[in-house]
């Protein structure tokens, strides 16, 4: 079987995370949250290490990772763009906004632009329905976005 490569510091960090949850298999989701918080995403190597530390099978870890949409195996863009597709935003035109982002950045949902700058994802209701449709870029929230605003939003981050 292929040996896995992971930087020592990362392995140590993962070991520490797992230990902070008593290396219990039942804490897998908490561990994954922490790991993703630390590394930004959950590549195979990270999952292998977690499986070993928690004494569960890698298949199980992968099964859990792929079940939950919050977990990602690919790094997000430098500026992750999320378009709220909650119903409130949908009926106020979120779909058009999404289409426009996809068109202008030329990437499908869930992927990152080649330069690593932007990634597009959909989320369900950030709870700012009063501002629908809502788009978030990183921590920043844009309210009442229309397809016409998309170019301006992207421009803000392209410098």
């Amino acid at each position, binding site marked *: 079987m292929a040996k896995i490569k992971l930087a020592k510091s990362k392995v140590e960090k993962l070991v520490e995370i797992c230990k902070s949850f008593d290396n219990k298999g039942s804490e897998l*989701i908490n561990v994954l*949250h922490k790991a993703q918080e630390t590394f930004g995403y959950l590549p195979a190597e990270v999952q292998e290490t977690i499986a070993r530390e928690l004494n569960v099978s890698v298949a199980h870890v992968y099964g859990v990772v792929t*079940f939950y*949409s919050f977990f990602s195996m690919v790094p997000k863009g430098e500026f992750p763009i999320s378009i709220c597709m909650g119903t409130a935003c949908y009926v106020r035109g979120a779909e*058009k906004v999404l289409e426009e982002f996809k068109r202008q950045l030329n990437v499908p949902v869930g992927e990152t632009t080649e330069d690593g700058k932007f990634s597009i994802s959909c989320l369900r*209701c*950030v709870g*700012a*329905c009063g*501002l629908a449709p809502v788009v978030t870029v990183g921590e920043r929230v844009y309210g009442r976005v229309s397809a016409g605003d998309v170019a301006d939003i992207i421009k803000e981050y392209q410098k």
Partner: protein
Amino acid sequence: MEKYKMHILICGGTGCRASASEAIQNNLQEAIKAKGLDDEVQVVMTGCFGFCEKGPIVKILPDNTFYVEVKPEDAEELIEEHIVKGRKVMRLLYVDPENKEVISDSKHMGFYKKQIRIALRNCGFINPENLDEYIARDGYAALGKCLAEMTPQTVIDEIKESGLRGRGGGGFPTGLKWEFAAKNIADQKYVVCNADEGDPGAFMDRSILEGDPHSVLEAMAICAYTMGADKGLIYIRAEYPLAITRLKVAIKQAREYGLLGNDILGSGFNFDVEMRYGAGAFVCGEETALIHSMEGLRGEPTVKPPFPAESGYNGKPTNVNNVETFANIPVIINKGASWFNKIGSEKSKGTKVFALAGKINNVGLIEVPMGTTLREVIYEIGGGIKDGKKFKAVQTGGPSGGCLTEKHLDTPIDFDNLLAVGSMMGSGGMIVMDEDDCMVSMAKFYLEFTVEESCGKCTPCRVGNKRLHEILDKITLGNGTKEDLDLLRNLSNVIKDTSLCGLGQTSPNPVLSTLDNFYDEYLAHIVDHRCPAGQCKALMQYVIDPELCVGCTLCARNCPVDCISGERKEAHLIDTSKCIKCGACMEKCKFNAISIQ
């Protein structure tokens, strides 16, 4: 203890924070300092006021002035005028859209008039990060009363008598649920708070947790007391960072005060709470799936029975209630079941919180007594349909609910009535749609959600919903047949009848209710190849009326795919083969020359 003469409350809900309410808070504080009023005016960031449409909201007490759409740069003026000079800042007050009257006290606004706030009693009123403020409002008094004066059974009886039903969707009587969990003997039991609010367009649980986290902690402790549990778990979406922070603060404070931990209030009762995080799976709102997720597994539901009350978290008796259900408990204990059960309708007692959104003037979070009609909610509280459009449908219950029409507007909202008309209460999403919304597309939108969120464990939900979505897609593309409508209905019924958990058992509701209420619209797509709402792209074309076009070139300049051609001052033309139907041209045209055909 300093006593302030004035309190300024700022909404710290996610919606208002997204519109910079934190900056407003900072600016207000600076302005107050600059005026040397630190000792006189207290600035408090509270939970959600509910009126998200008009956020960020700033409320000044004691004269109860409700400022709307406040910007950080308004802070100085507010302090100078309102606080120092005692003059209201007129331009930031709410104006009634109907009679253009300025209203400064929120309770005179249509949005608030019909509301009764029980679950939301502290939201927008206290600082959620300050336990003292909660205690000042009878916080933990209900827990104290239970521990000192009531037996577990009398507490259960009180809850049963109150008629409280689960607010998470199913509407199961809460008291009965507690009783089941109490009756199962085990060395370890758990109380779980379901805060995995996944319904797109619903945010009531989040608002409660953000605005009044202690009410949930207190209720969990009361529940634990009745069933003999000493451990509580809150399963919350990782997508709710603010609610998580507030809960963590609340748990820490409650521990410091000894309101969580061992020997609470000297009663010998022990109880503590831990957090568990969801990771983006709607199905985890189902209690067995939620429990599996807490155990570190894929959040797949299992067949009930066994119910969690017998075998739940780690195989131990577990009681799962949702946030809003818990938020009602302390009030019921404090004010009594007989107070509570006077509110609401015959079989649904108390109030319900709804996230009112969509094509409505007053988007926001509302709490109304059960039995309030949809009309009251939409037209009085919601202020009617946006932009003077025509009401078409209201969708309750999120992906599990149905689309209701004009004829249902006078239906009093409660669990049973909504079910009877083919929808359901669900967790409380309420989306209003107008004439521009295509109901086939709406059904498709919900099915897309269900397909994405189905766990994949059982065949009807995994494959059936996918097929429903495909048929709906076919219809919106104009390729549907009449037979498809029969297939949709049969498949919907079978999915409801055979799915393993609540997700699949309710997922066809948007299809069935639109088939029932908007059959003609389906037919229009199929027979006439026409989308009456003008929403289905495949069935429409943007055209420029050469009579009306003045050749201003604005449309051409705004077309993202350059498919509009024409000389300046001459009529323009849209190349329909290139047009992506984004609608930008129509939005920009000042001469109404562009229309959809």
